[in-house]
C-alpha cells in the first residue's frame, strides 16, 4: 500500500483544504517543487503562484495563492498562506478589476503611491486570472 500524504491548507480565514493526496506541487521562492509521500522534512517559503493537488488518478485541483510558507513533516504537508482560493471559485471579474486598479495606480504620477505594494497587488491579480483561466481551459 502506498503511503498517503496529508495536505492541510491554512489561511487567516480558516482551513481551506484538508485531505489525503497523491502529490502536491508548490510555488517555492527558489522555484516550483513537488511533494510526494515520504518527502524529507522541509520548510520552504512560497511565492505568489498556483498550488496543484493530485488527489487521485482522476482528480486534480488547483488553487491560486499569494504566498506564505509550507512545512513537511511525517507525511503531513502544512501549507500556511495568506490566501488560497480554489481555481473554480475565483471571481474573474473581481480579479480583472483588481488588475486594472493596480495598473492605474502604477501609472499615476502621484507621490503618495506605494509602488511595491501596487506591484504586489498586480502580481496577485495576474496570478489569480492566470490560474482561473488555466483551469477553465482544461474543462
Amino acid at each position, binding site marked *: 500500500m502506498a503511503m498517503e500524504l496529508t495536505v492541510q491548507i*491554512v489561511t487567516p480565514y480558516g482551513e481551506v483544504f484538508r485531505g489525503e493526496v497523491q502529490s502536491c506541487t508548490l510555488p517555492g521562492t527558489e522555484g516550483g517543487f513537488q511533494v510526494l509521500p515520504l518527502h524529507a522534512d522541509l520548510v520552504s*517559503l512560497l511565492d505568489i503562484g498556483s498550488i496543484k493537488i493530485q488527489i487521485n488518478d482522476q482528480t486534480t485541483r488547483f488553487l491560486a495563492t499569494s504566498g506564505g*510558507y509550507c512545512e513537511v513533516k511525517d507525511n503531513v504537508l502544512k501549507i500556511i498562506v495568506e490566501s488560497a482560493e480554489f481555481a473554480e471559485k475565483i471571481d474573474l471579474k473581481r480579479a480583472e478589476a483588481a488588475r486594472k486598479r493596480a495598473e492605474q495606480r502604477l501609472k499615476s504620477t502621484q507621490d503618495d503611491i506605494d509602488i511595491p505594494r501596487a506591484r504586489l497587488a498586480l502580481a496577485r491579480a495576474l496570478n489569480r486570472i492566470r490560474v482561473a483561466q488555466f483551469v477553465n481551459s482544461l474543462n
Partner: protein
Amino acid sequence: MANLREIRKRISSVQSTQQITKAMKMVAAAKLRKAQENILAFRPYAYELRRLIAHLSAMTEDVSQIPLMARRPVEKALLVVVTADRGLCGAFNSNIVRRASERLREYSDTEAELFLVGRKGVEFFHKRPVTVNGQKINFFNELNFNDAVELTDTILNIYREQQFDRVEFIYNEFKSAIQQNVIVEQFLPFVPDEEIMKSPRQVDFLYEPDKATILNNVIPKHLHVQVWRILLESNAAEQGARMTAMENATDNAEEMIHQLTIFYNRKRQASITTEISEIVSGAEALKES
C-alpha cells in the same frame, strides 16, 4: 410636565428611543457573533506561524541578521491606539484614550508619538497637545484581513524609516460580551513566544532558502496576524460593549416608560376628579339658590 399632552409626547419619544436601542443591541449581537467566528477561523493559522517562528528563532543564533528583532534603548516610541469608529458602546473608547494618555505620561522623558486607529481616538486627540504620526479610520464596519496587512505595513514603514525603537499597541481585549480588558502590548521589536521556544524539537528540517531569510520573510506575516488579531479582538470587544450598553439603555427606557405611564394615569385621574368635584359643587350651588 404638567399637562397630559406633554407627558404623552414624552412617553412616545422614550418609546421610539427604546426601539432604536433595541435594534442597535440586536445588530451588535449579530456583529459580535461574526467577529467571534472570525477569531475562531484564524486561530490555526496564527498558531502555525507562531510555532514556526519560535522554532526558527530558537535555531538561529545570530539575531543581528533579523532587523525586526533587534533591540535598542528606547528613545522614540510609537503608541498605536485602537479605538472604535463609532460611539454608543459604554466606556469602550474612553478606557482606551485614558490608558493611552497615561502611557504618554509614562513616556514623558522619551519621545513618544501616537498612531490612531479608529475615528473616536482621532476625535479625542484632535485638539490635544500630542504628536500624531498617522491614522487609519472608518474601516471597522467591513473589516477584512487586508486592513490588517495595510496597517501593519504602514507601521513597519514608520518604524524603519523614522527610527522608532519601540512600538506598542493599546487595545481592548475581548473577555466576554460584558467584559473588556485594556491591553498594552509590545509589538516591535519582535519577541518570539518563549514558551514554545523552550520545548525542544528533535528533528531539523531542510530549509529553503536559509533560516534567516525565511525568518525575515515570515516575521512580517506574523505581524500581520498580530494586527489582525488585535483588530478582531477590538472589534469583538466593541460589539460586546455596545450590546451591553444598548441593553442597559433599553432597560432604562422600559423603566422610564413605566414611571411615566403611572404618572400620566395619576394626572389623568386627578384631572377627572377635579372636574367631577367642580361639576358637583356647581350643581350644589344651583340647588341652594
